[in-house]
């Protein structure tokens, strides 16, 4: 019976979330894209690295659904494998920047002595434009997928930290936190078990948007040739490689560009939907 207690709440949340058809559609589209990419080894029509000189720059057709690139590699297969990296980096950045941002934001919101220095640090970090800071960090850390995740998490963690700090400052003053402290619950436990669950909604919303921004930033870095090592295909590298053939083979940049745009758009729609569903007061303003 205990499960049913939260079931109506969850059902209402899902009803609210998917009451907008755009959000439902975005969720379906993103799930399908993600599923196809994860299952790439089974669903990809060809080996993404197999070259064929005769198939060079083949237009999309029956043999090569989305065409073949300058090395005669199957674009559809590369698109699926590249999606694993592009989506993986986005998800990784959303998770890591949330963890770091939560830690910084909770400390700044809870310990007044730390608030000043941490807030100024967050301000300074946010003064750097995202791509520029990411370029600098990746150039120093080196261009692997993990380093790109670390670099972009450093770039986006301050955004989470700012939201967490602001929410913590409000929640900290509420009676139940005071009660927990009076009962002798340790400060870290109050922070994680009492404050965090109450501020998780804005974090989830922001993390969804960071997922989207990180995918765009990663694509930008790969396009500039300063991101993940070009031997690993990502949607951004595919556009960069296809650039040289812009006049002869537009499909080389068309499909990876569409893949990025569709995924990012879906994430932004889901982010908007989550914001409205998690905070119904905001919904009326839209």
């Amino acid at each position, binding site marked *: 019976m205990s499960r049913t207690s939260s079931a109506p709440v969850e059902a209402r949340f899902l009803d609210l979330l998917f009451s907008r058809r755009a959000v439902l559609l975005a969720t379906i589209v993103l799930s399908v894209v993600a599923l196809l990419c994860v299952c790439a080894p089974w669903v990809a029509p060809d080996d993404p690295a197999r070259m064929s000189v005769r198939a060079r720059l083949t237009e999309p057709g029956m043999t090569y659904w989305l065409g073949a690139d300058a090395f005669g590699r199957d674009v559809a297969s590369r698109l699926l494998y590249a999606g694993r990296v592009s989506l993986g980096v986005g998800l990784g950045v959303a998770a890591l920047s949330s963890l770091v941002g939560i830690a910084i934001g909770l400390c700044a919101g809870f310990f007044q002595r730390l608030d000043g220095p941490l807030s100024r640090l967050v301000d*300074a970090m946010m003064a750097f*434009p*995202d791509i520029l*800071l990411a*370029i*600098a960090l990746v150039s120093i850390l080196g261009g692997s997928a993990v380093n790109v995740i670390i670099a972009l998490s450093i770039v986006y963690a301050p955004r989470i930290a700012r939201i967490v700090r602001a929410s913590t400052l409000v929640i900290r003053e509420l009676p139940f936190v005071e009660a927990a402290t009076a009962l002798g619950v340790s400060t870290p436990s109050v922070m994680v078990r009492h404050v965090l669950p109450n501020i998780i909604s804005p974090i989830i919303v922001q993390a969804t948007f960071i997922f989207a921004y990180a995918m765009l930033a990663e694509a930008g870095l790969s396009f500039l040739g300063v991101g993940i090592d070009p031997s690993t295909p990502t949607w951004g590298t595919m556009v960069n490689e296809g650039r040289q053939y*812009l*006049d002869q083979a537009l499909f080389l940049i068309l499909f990876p560009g569409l893949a990025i*745009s569709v995924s990012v758009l879906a994430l*932004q729609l889901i982010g908007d939907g989550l914001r409205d569903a998690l905070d119904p007061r905001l919904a009326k303003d839209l």
Partner: protein
Amino acid sequence: MRSYLARRLIGMAVVIFLVLTIAFFIVRLAPGDPAALMLGPEATAEDAAVLRQQLGLDQPIFVQYLKFLGNAVRGDLGTSIFFKQPVTQVLLGRAEPTVFLSLFSLTIALIIAVPIGNYAAYRRGSFLDQASISTAMLAASVPSFWTGLMLQRYLATDLGWFPASGYGGPDAHFWERMRHLLLPSIVLGIVNSALVLRFTRASMLDILGEDYIRTARSKGMGEARVVLRHALKNAAIPIITVIGLTFALLVSGAVVTERVFNIPGMGNLVVSAVLRRDYPVIQGTLIVVASLYVLINLLTDLAYLLVDKRVRY
């Protein structure tokens, strides 16, 4: 007011100090010897030793840090390893296209987004409102380099309306150079209009819900006067905020767009610097851009004072 200004200036100084500190330590984060890293794999140990001494890397890190801060305050951001010139000079030499690209694209974004944003808010829930929000979200989802490449292919290569790339060559006339910035500015303008549109719409919605608008209407004032004289006047204020907000977006966009259209600006410079491992240039760009961001945000806050009589500090 004076105390507010003093507080803001001190706050700005602290943030710029932190910006300098972050920029200094980012380069020191690199694993291994920075001198060897800058010189690349072909360099000998002697070359590295000479460069280390030149850059002062043989001194304790704290001494290096103090020297770096002292130099930066005097406007000395070090010497580019590739150009063998002061970083400030290298950056200034590349500033023209980036500054004009940013100004043009900001203007284009404002021209597109401010009227549509205001109108969408006024006709809230209408087809036009929904279409404009959807388009803005789409514009914010498409990578700017992709939009750039597509427009380059169709508008420049196929139709020949714009120069496809470059900056007109070394001896090009000023207007010729500006002509080369048109298409890149349109691309960046479209990308940035998404943020401006959302922001303008949201603030106009706030204003239309205010009591004084209701009062104006209940006095029997004509709808055109309510909107033109009361609402639009106050809706102009958020535009100042948007200029501050879009700055970071403009710079990030400029880095990518300059690369797409092969424009020799600061964005292109920083990407080349990464590929050449020219760390002083990367560091210098970070410092200049971040400091400008802090300054612009201070200026936009101060501009509020002049425009909005209700704001008092």
